[in-house]
């Protein structure tokens, strides 16, 4: 245990050590829009420790078997007509599949051409 008032350099070293031994966990929150909730049993959000997009898709598939084929093309890249945002920024501006999530990232899936429900007014 660190003493109260320990110098910043000591705190920083301790945090780095904690990361290395896995004591600090990455957690992101995926917001799921209405058109996709039929695949998630109605859930509108999904917390995950996935480190990047591929891991996130795998985590979703594990939780909701069959969802991945509606989100990904055959090669694992996102469906052409689904946009992915991280903290309101299009993930393609952040490096796309190569982007590594940060703790607390808010991820949003949005169909590119969105809107509509099958029931008429």
């Amino acid at each position, binding site marked *: 245990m660190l003493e109260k008032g320990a110098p910043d350099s000591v705190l920083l070293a301790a945090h780095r050590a904690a990361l290395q031994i896995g004591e600090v966990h990455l957690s992101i929150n995926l917001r799921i829009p209405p058109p996709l909730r039929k695949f998630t049993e109605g859930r509108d959000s999904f917390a995950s420790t996935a480190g990047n997009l591929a891991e996130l898709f795998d985590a979703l598939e594990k939780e909701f078997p069959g969802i991945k084929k509606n989100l990904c093309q055959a090669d694992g890249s996102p469906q*052409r*007509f689904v946009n992915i945002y991280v903290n309101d920024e299009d993930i393609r501006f952040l490096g796309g599949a190569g982007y590594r999530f940060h703790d607390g990232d808010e991820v949003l899936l949005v169909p590119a051409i969105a*809107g509509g429900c099958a029931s008429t*007014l």
Partner: protein
Amino acid sequence: MTYALHLKCRECARTYELEPLAACSDCWAPLEVVYDYGRIWSDVRRQDLAARPATMWRYRELLPLKGDPWVGRFTGFTPLVPAPRLARALGLGELYLKNDAVNHPTLSFKDRVVAVALSKAHEFGFETVGCSSTGNLANAVASQAAAGGFHAYVFVPADLENEKIVATEVYGARVVKISGNYDQVNRLCSEIAEKYPWGIVNVNLRSYYSEGSKTLGFEVAEQLGWRLPQNIVIPMAGGSLITKVQKAFDELKQLGWVEPRPTRFFGAQATGCSPITTAAKRGTPEIEPQKPHTIAKSLAIGNPADGYHAVKAILASGGAGEDVTDEEIVEGIRLLAETEGLFTETAGGVTVAVARKLARAGSLRADESTVLAITGNGLKTIGAVSGAAQESAVIRPKLAEFEEHYLSVEHAHA
């Protein structure tokens, strides 16, 4: 009575009922309206159209309404203007301008798509309508919503030209200014369309809205004497217009109303927002989004929803995508004004400047027919040319001062 059969996914071909749906729930690709072309062919003769009103509704069998239009009754059938002086300046021969800068009621081609969307909104029973917009759509929705008795919410980027915002607010629509670019505004509209029972014309009504663009193509063909142009240059924002004009030409060929001649489609963008033309130049329909930086705000969509299909339309036709700088856009506006007396907004400047670039490169040829789509009025983007126009000196009401300040200048130009 309608000849529309159903909605169909453009990628996986799954079909849906004619409801306010815009995207396939399997692959998220856009849906489009499919018509009973066989029945249209047998019920409608091309020569019957000549007696119909000079509006976009003369092609009603190829539009998705069940009954008469609720709004936009006088929209469309804008002039197709021969442009010999501009042609000479560009080194082209047979050149025409499809002048939607004078479309009714709000002076842009968006009046067409809104007339269809809001008429469908009425058929679906929506009481509140809306849109996300770079300007022209805002004007059109606000105007036609007022005329149709709808409540309206219009979502725009906060830095839109003031004349476009004023020309939207005046109709009584609620204008929601968003601190962000169009793509961010559109995303919000998607969330709103999911949550509220509103008809957002370019979101949940998009499949019907986009059909209105076909009428620009139908009119060009009819006004050329039921003949397709060999080339057409069309500005691109979301990418819908160019794909629907191509659909229009294909439908006319399918009905046998025109000779099956090919048309090369050229898509025009500003270099400062050129995701579609960049992809077209690379020869791939895969779009990489951009952050827009251009005075052509009406085309400033960095993540175009129909970009993929726009590139496919361009490449399949043997055409090309080309883009121009902001400086060239202003030159394009002035060139059109000074040669043919038509004042277009920045999107029209893009089209003219791109045509000039294509002509210089030999992609547009002097021995072929070319149409330029002039999609909006110059009064909507006055700021873009202010300062670039020749400044006039203020003189006292004296003949000598006029002769000194103006006639001497004229003589210098003579």
